């Protein structure tokens, strides 16, 4: 919940109000700071603990801060002011889910910053000599006169990753500040620097399994404890190991917890597991039906709240969970996001197999980066079938997608597994899982807490020897060992069920027929001019490439295209207007 925005320079009258108005669902109050041609805005919910209740104004600085620190502090903007003396961030131990703007009145310098893992977002753009920033893209689109033109290169990346990675967003000129970074804007120049970078540094003491297990148990509980602020909380409980582990730690901390679990009816794959965990931990459990009809009904709202295109179908059920938590009167929800990325989930395995069998054949994908791109299972390698010639000609040079991966997958790190983990955290975790979870929860005024992305826990996870993450073929071994007495063995040792949203059935059901025809019908596809209608017709008929073995890919690909078209309409054609 909450959001900030502002500008340095001359902006049309009423701009700050328009930017704050674009996120009115993120709070019932607002605070502003205006001094000369500098403006900061802050929208928030009144009376929420651990949140700033206004923009901090002092003689030397003004600070707007959205989100929370972990552990909570009395005044988040005061903490930012304290740590940004002289413009240099001293953020070595700072953690939480925050985005801030710090105006140094004497130096005439604006500093923007994001939390280490990217729960909260920040975008910026320079237009007509004025520097604008905001926690949501739609706030920048509200700036009068800002040109809104889609960026084909960013769309091309979205169609590969299912989210837009890196600093560029699909609108030309607008940039994103990366997680764990700060930006200093002074005298018309912006300078970006990193204050946090996760690195692998194996700790020999953690080679002892018992020590490693005890450490994970202690830090996991501490990560949850640091994020508790006294209110009754919700837990998005899937029945898998990660959310169940967070549940265990919440229970150990004595939190008052209500569990919310998705119910896909007869297509639910972890329903019994979720029920078992809730009863084991003594949580009241609320089942949230997530049918094709319900998802179709909230589709437009989901697109608007997501702010960027996200092609993973998990977002709509998350939105429904948020709705249920909101209706139950909660303002804080915990989730188990991050377990796979930190502790070695199943996604490492395909890359290991590919590494072993690399370079056997002529004309195969030879680089580790290309193999990683394939693992997203969207349209990498299918560009000729999907893209029109016109679109293909505009997507930019070869190698731009691989460039996002090279810093992580090159041979610089200590171990192969942790290189994959670093790529997963930095891209999939920080630029996909966390921001989309935050936006879905905030769509209902909820503050989302993701304790597995705790800074200390994450840094420790990268000091663990990799074989304690993937132990033979056993994923997240150390977390399983840490949980084996706290959870039933069938929860701890069960195999990962994988994608649990029956998205192919949903998008091909009558409930989605109208949305599908409207967005991906022949006429709509031709009008947009990006894709070949024949390929999309095949997906709509339930046909995928002949070499595709999994039916769920049809739904995943259709959802990715559907979200993109809906996003283009809402954000490019209509400049972020609400549904």
């Amino acid at each position, binding site marked *: 919940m909450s959001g900030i925005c502002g500008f340095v320079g001359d902006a049309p009258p009423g701009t700050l109000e328009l930017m704050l108005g674009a996120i009115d669902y993120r709070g019932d109050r607002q605070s502003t700071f205006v001094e000369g041609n500098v403006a900061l805005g802050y929208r928030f919910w009144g009376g929420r603990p651990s949140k700033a209740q206004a923009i901090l104004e002092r003689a030397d600085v003004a600070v707007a801060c959205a989100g929370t620190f972990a552990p909570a502090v009395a005044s988040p903007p005061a903490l930012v002011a304290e740590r940004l003396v002289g413009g240099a961030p001293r953020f070595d131990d700072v953690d939480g889910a925050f985005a801030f703007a710090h105006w140094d009145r004497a130096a005439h310098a604006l500093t923007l910053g994001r939390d280490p893992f990217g729960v909260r977002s920040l975008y910026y753009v320079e237009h007509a000599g004025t520097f604008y920033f905001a926690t949501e893209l739609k706030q920048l689109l509200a700036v009068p006169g800002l040109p809104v033109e889609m960026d084909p290169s960013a769309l091309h990346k979205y169609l590969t990753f299912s989210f837009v990675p890196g600093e560029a967003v699909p609108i030309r000129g607008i940039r994103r500040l990366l997680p764990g970074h700060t930006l200093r804007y002074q005298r018309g120049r912006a300078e970006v620097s990193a204050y946090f970078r996760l690195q692998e540094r194996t700790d020999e003491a953690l080679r002892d399994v018992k020590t490693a297990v005890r450490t994970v148990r202690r830090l996991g509980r501490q990560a949850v404890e640091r994020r508790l602020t006294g209110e009754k909380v919700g837990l998005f409980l899937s029945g898998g190991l990660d959310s169940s582990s967070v549940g265990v730690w919440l229970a150990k901390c004595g939190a008052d917890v209500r569990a919310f679990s998705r119910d896909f009816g007869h297509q639910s794959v972890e329903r019994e597991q979720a029920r078992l965990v809730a009863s084991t931990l003594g949580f009241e459990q609320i089942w949230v039906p997530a049918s094709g009809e319900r998802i179709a009904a909230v589709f437009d709202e989901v697109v608007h709240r997501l702010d960027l295109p996200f092609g993973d179908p998990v977002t709509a059920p998350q939105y429904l969970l948020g709705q249920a938590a909101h209706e139950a009167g909660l303002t804080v929800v915990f989730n188990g996001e991050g377990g796979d990325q930190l502790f070695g989930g*199943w996604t*490492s*395995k*395909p890359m*290991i*197999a*590919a*590494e*072993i*069998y*690399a*370079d*056997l*054949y*002529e*004309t*195969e994908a030879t680089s580790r980066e290309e*193999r990683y791109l*394939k*693992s997203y299972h969207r349209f990498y390698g299918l560009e000729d079938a999907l893209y029109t010639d016109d679109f293909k000609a505009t997507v930019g040079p070869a190698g731009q997608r691989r460039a996002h991966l090279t810093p992580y997958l090159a041979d610089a790190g200590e*171990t*192969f*597994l942790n290189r994959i983990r670093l790529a997963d955290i930095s891209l999939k975790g920080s630029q996909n899982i966390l921001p989309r979870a935050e936006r879905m929860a905030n769509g209902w005024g909820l503050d989302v807490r993701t304790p597995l992305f705790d800074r200390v826990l994450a840094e420790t996870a990268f000091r663990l020897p*990799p*074989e304690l993450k*993937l*132990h*033979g*073929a056993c994923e997240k071994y150390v977390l399983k060992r840490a949980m084996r007495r706290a959870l039933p063995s069938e929860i701890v*040792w069960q*195999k990962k069920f994988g994608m649990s949203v029956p998205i192919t059935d949903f998008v091909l059901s009558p409930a989605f027929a109208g949305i599908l025809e409207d967005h991906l019908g022949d006429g709509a596809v031709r009008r947009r001019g990006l894709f070949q209608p024949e390929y999309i017709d095949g997906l709509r008929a339930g046909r995928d*490439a*002949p*070499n595709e*073995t*999994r039916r769920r890919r049809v739904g995943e690909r259709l959802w990715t295209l559907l979200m993109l078209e809906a996003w283009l309409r809402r954000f490019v054609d209509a400049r972020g207007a609400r549904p």
Partner: protein
Amino acid sequence: MKCIHCQVDTKLKDRQDGCCPHCKHAFAFEPARNDKLTDPAFEMVIERVSSLGTVRYTERNLYYEAARRVGRRSKATPWVLGGIGLFFLVSVLLTTKYFLLIPGGLFLLLAILNLPHQVAKLSYPEFANMLARWRSVHGTPKGLIVTREAPAVARPLPSDIQHYSFDRAVITDRRETADLLLANNFHFENNCAVLTIDGYPESAFDVVRAMLKNNPKLQVFVVHDATLRGQWLARELVRNQWFQPTARIVDVGLGVRHMQAFKGVWQAAEYGVAAMSAPELLREAPLLGKYTLELAAIRPEQTIKRLFRAMTGQPETGDDAGSGGVSSDWGSFSSDASSSDGGGDSFG
């Protein structure tokens, strides 16, 4: 014959120099020289075996697709010819006009000659010759799996990889089967090791075998041709202790029961060798002493999909599921083996 480059149809007299008179591209084949396929027919073979260019395939896959095309016959023809022959013979009985025995006999003979083949009517050396000509004229067919030459110094694997394992393993009796699966990313999509029993691929064999021992719950899928040796493969793996005793081994290879659907692409078995290697099995399955059926005869797309189905249809291996024994899942390759697998005469 149509030129595959410009699609212009030409008469024999117009292409005496072996080239298309319209676009001047060379033809690889010439029916007038008794080549068994034309260029467009071979191109269609490539399209079919690669499922329109989306699946990679081995030379053996391409061979069987070509063999199906060459041996293509109508299923109705022998019945029609036989019916006419019988009509003449019945007429002889009714009319005592014995000269009708001649056409009746001729039609019956034709019916017998037109019965579907069992053994492939295109030999591998003939096919290899055709492929070489195709390559020299049109280049290597797109999607054909071509192995890279092993580098002089083996590529070092990251040192931590040996600590991990796979969820599943496919062990097969043929390099071509391993190539088919690996080149189509089966290992990547299914977290699955792929090895042949005789040590292929060499660059990965030792490390993968060691890794397989790291997983007590490993699921092993044995994939083989319908040969006597193939029937032994799973038992050989158990005997040689390839895996931990708790691994679950499922034989999903081809057997006698699959052969009927693939008449026309059988191969003659090397009887003597087979009989010596597996006399008990020869008594159980005498057909395998005469004929064999290669997995490569099934279209690659179907092989991959059926193997995936066989894997995902298996119950998860629980703590007590591993028996160390061998079970069979013959259904995956047989239940609906039909023309869609490349098993019927209607192909090509």
